[in-house]
């Protein structure tokens, strides 16, 4: 078990380093001159003062060789310094830290909703003996993953804010303001959870141990919830871990739709003005969250299914 944990930690650190390197390459090394984009910041490029350009180049280290730049940046990133935002001049880490609570609220609520609704849908769809109900419920998830989230958000706003006047349409207005964006964000995620859980539940219900449980006289609900669900929840858990990254990314769109302040709004704004340090900070942060969540999922996994550790150790031992 300890070797499993240590190996997973090392893997996570490796992925993060590579994600940083990749984002560095994409943002600082691709065609286009970031410095003149920064100095211009939305203005006509001909109006840039050459002296200001040189100063900026020196400040960001663009006059040094790429490799030196990379090592410098990586060193300060390891110390938690991702540089300063070009448009506001504030440190990237504090920009992210300030916006984070709003986004965490939103994604957390959405994840909870998605798990409850998606899981509930899958349970009901596999439990019911009504054919039409099962068919109808099982066709909902593929609908959920096919409709654009921003459009769902606009439709919900139209109905619940403008027609029924139940919830505020825009802004970070406490719990009431959280409802609509969280529901919108939960739609695609919940649909994925439902798809995976329904599929693995149906597989689990065909297993011999379910037959055994039934033969021993366990009731339908007990077999479904006590025996099948426990085994079927493993793939769903993995998918939820993978979906957290997608939730964070979708928050960019949702926060724009609902005009909420948060990490997503900051990202969208940073992309618009080519604020490279902020974009890089957000990308690396996204990878960090993704890696951490999946690390946690991988560490929970053996608690639910002890075979995982055994398999992982056996596969590695001959090498």
């Amino acid at each position, binding site marked *: 078990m300890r070797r499993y944990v240590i190996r997973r930690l090392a893997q996570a650190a490796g992925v993060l380093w590579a994600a940083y390197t990749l984002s560095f390459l994409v943002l600082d090394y691709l065609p286009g001159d970031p410095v003149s984009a920064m100095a211009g910041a939305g203005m006509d490029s001909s109006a840039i003062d050459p002296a200001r350009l040189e100063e900026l180049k020196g400040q960001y280290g663009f006059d040094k060789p790429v490799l030196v730049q990379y090592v410098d940046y990586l060193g300060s990133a390891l110390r938690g310094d991702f540089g300063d935002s070009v448009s506001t001049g504030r440190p990237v880490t504090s920009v992210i830290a300030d916006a984070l609570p709003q986004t965490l609220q939103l994604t957390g609520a959405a994840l909870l909703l998605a798990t409850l609704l998606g899981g509930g849908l899958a349970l009901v769809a596999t439990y019911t003996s009504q054919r039409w109900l099962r068919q109808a419920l099982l066709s909902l998830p*593929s609908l959920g993953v096919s409709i654009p989230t*921003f459009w769902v958000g606009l439709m919900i706003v139209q109905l619940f804010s*403008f027609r029924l006047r139940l919830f505020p349409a825009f802004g970070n207005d406490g719990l009431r303001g959280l409802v609509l964006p969280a529901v919108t964000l939960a739609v695609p995620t919940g649909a994925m959870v439902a798809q995976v859980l329904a599929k693995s539940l149906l597989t689990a219900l065909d297993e011999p141990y379910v037959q055994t449980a039934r033969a021993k006289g366990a009731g339908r609900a007990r077999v479904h919830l006590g025996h099948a669900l426990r085994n079927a929840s493993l793939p769903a858990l993995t998918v939820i871990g993978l979906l957290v*990254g997608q939730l964070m990314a979708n928050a960019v769109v949702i926060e*724009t739709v609902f005009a909420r302040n948060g990490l997503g709004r900051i990202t969208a704004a940073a992309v618009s003005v080519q604020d490279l340090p902020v974009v890089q900070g957000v990308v690396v942060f996204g990878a960090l969250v993704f890696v951490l969540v999946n690390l946690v999922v991988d560490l929970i996994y053996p608690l639910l299914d002890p075979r995982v550790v055994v398999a992982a150790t056996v596969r590695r031992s001959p090498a």
Partner: protein
Amino acid sequence: MSRSLAAGPAVQAGPEPPSEAMSPAPGPRLGVDVRRLSRFFLRRPGLVLSLIVVTLVVLAAFWPTLFTGRDPLLGVPADNFQPPGARHWFGTDELGRDTYSRVVHGAALSLKATLVAVAVAFVVGGALGLVAGFAGRWVEDVLMRFVDVLLSIPALFLSLALVTALGYGTVKVAVAVGIASVASFARVMRAEVLRVRQAVFVEAARSSGTRWYGVLGRHVLPNAMGPVVVLATLDFGTAVLAVSSLSFLGYGAAPPAPEWGTLVSDGRNYLANAWWLSTLPGLTVAATVLATNRIARALDGEWATQR
């Protein structure tokens, strides 16, 4: 189909011949079985509808004048904010432009972006997977670790980083979306190449002196393509959504040009008084994605398993 051509009898000796012997009229293998085809479609009205939707979208992209004679950019100020009706099917916007003709003309840009995105993902991802699976050893390790890293950055964040670096525009957005889904193509391609590489016909080709590029191009690639093509059709829907999300955020085509995501975001300012402006273009996007996903699902197994 190409499998039977390249593989020859050695591999086909598996489960294929008995099933063929059982069918009453063993016609030519490559011919289209009309009865099977019609029964397949008759049982799946949703699939037929999906094919119609996709055909309409493709037609609208290449020949928009088939559907509408109106100019998508021409505004008639007196006609602004007309609700949907006989004269304007999808209503009109704040400048009196016909939303239906804007959606029809927008199909070209949106479809182009989607095609570019899928093509980039297919070619780059396929090449990575092919090289990784075929070369093996350290090349495979390096390439697949790179793919793992791509997977660990959420797709939209990766696209946004690329848009920041590349700039705005339909094609640039499309490339950004394509690169973001390179990883899954590389994984599927590598898995297939690894599977095919073990096959007897590859060994036979090697031992009869075929050069490595011959083995790769004539034997491995055609036989590993199938699942990657299915993935490409699945990726189509994802790409439509991603491209429209990015153009909704404002990184797509420059303002006057109609693009589906942009149309939805333009209508956002008039949600309270002109519901149709973002509802109907968004519905078009949703219908297109649903249709392509349905077709992908049919390609991915339904046809093969149907008796």
